[in-house]
């Protein structure tokens, strides 16, 4: 699965999280570009990234920073 992420680094917060099937790769890439263009137009410097993992749960383990606060990061994962 593909995951489009908009992340506000300074605030440490996830702003947008969108999922795409593997068969929709082209749409996911287009959505990423459109989001970057929109944020650029608005002068918003958020991080925009497209990631892919077998499941959302896998993604949440390998890229915890996008989803968790510092306190949550320090807690054991279930």
């Amino acid at each position, binding site marked *: 699965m593909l995951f489009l992420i908009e992340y506000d680094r300074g605030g440490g917060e996830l702003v947008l999280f969108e999922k795409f099937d593997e068969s929709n790769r082209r749409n996911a890439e287009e959505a990423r570009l459109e989001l970057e263009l929109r944020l650029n137009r608005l002068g918003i410097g958020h991080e925009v990234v497209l990631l892919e993992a077998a499941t959302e749960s896998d993604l949440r383990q390998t890229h915890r920073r996008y989803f968790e606060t*510092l306190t949550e990061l320090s807690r054991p994962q279930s």
Partner: protein
Amino acid sequence: MTKTQIDRLGERLKMGQATPEDLRMLDEFRRSFFPVYEKVILTIEEQLKLKTTGRPAKSTTSISDKLNRESIRLTQIQDITGCRVIVSNISEQEKVVAELSRIFPKVTVIDRRTTPSNGYRAVHVVVESQGRLIEIQIRTSLQHLWAEVSEKFADVTDPAIKYGKGSQEVRTVLNGMSELVASVELDEQRFEGAPPKNPSSVLHGLGGEPEGIREKVRKLLESTIKRLALDKE
């Protein structure tokens, strides 16, 4: 796109002057890595039976930051595309690195366990294929935990922390934890499969059992976060 055009694009990104046309051009450049990226990911998953989280394209903000931080050109960045693999311990990490070096003909191994980058420990294997570089990050679960916490500290306090600047207090804490992780993992490797008869000071001090040690590392992190009152909860 020629190499010169791409590097000129890099200069504009560095200056923070990206136009919509620049973003489209960067997008085209990043997408040109996809065939090789896909091949590398499939090889890792099929031959090594490892789970990966792929990043088909480095974010524009990360590219701009890197161009500003290091004196390199856009065409020289070696992690435009890549993936991350998390393994349980050092022994497994070494096995994966050896397998990757065997499977791919052209690799560069960057061992950040022996030469940590501001506390960051991991092994990066950079695969070269068809003139493109793909970076594979191999982290143990503890190295990964440290990296995630360090990144988050940098996000919510000061991005410079990741690069050895910013708050001395936070850097001291993170460096101390990085060294602790390294000591614990070294001892785990040394005494793999059997409890140590003569535990080193680190293992002894932390309780001796790998799982117990991990819990204690996590507790240390939690108390640090509370002490520095950095969370927004």
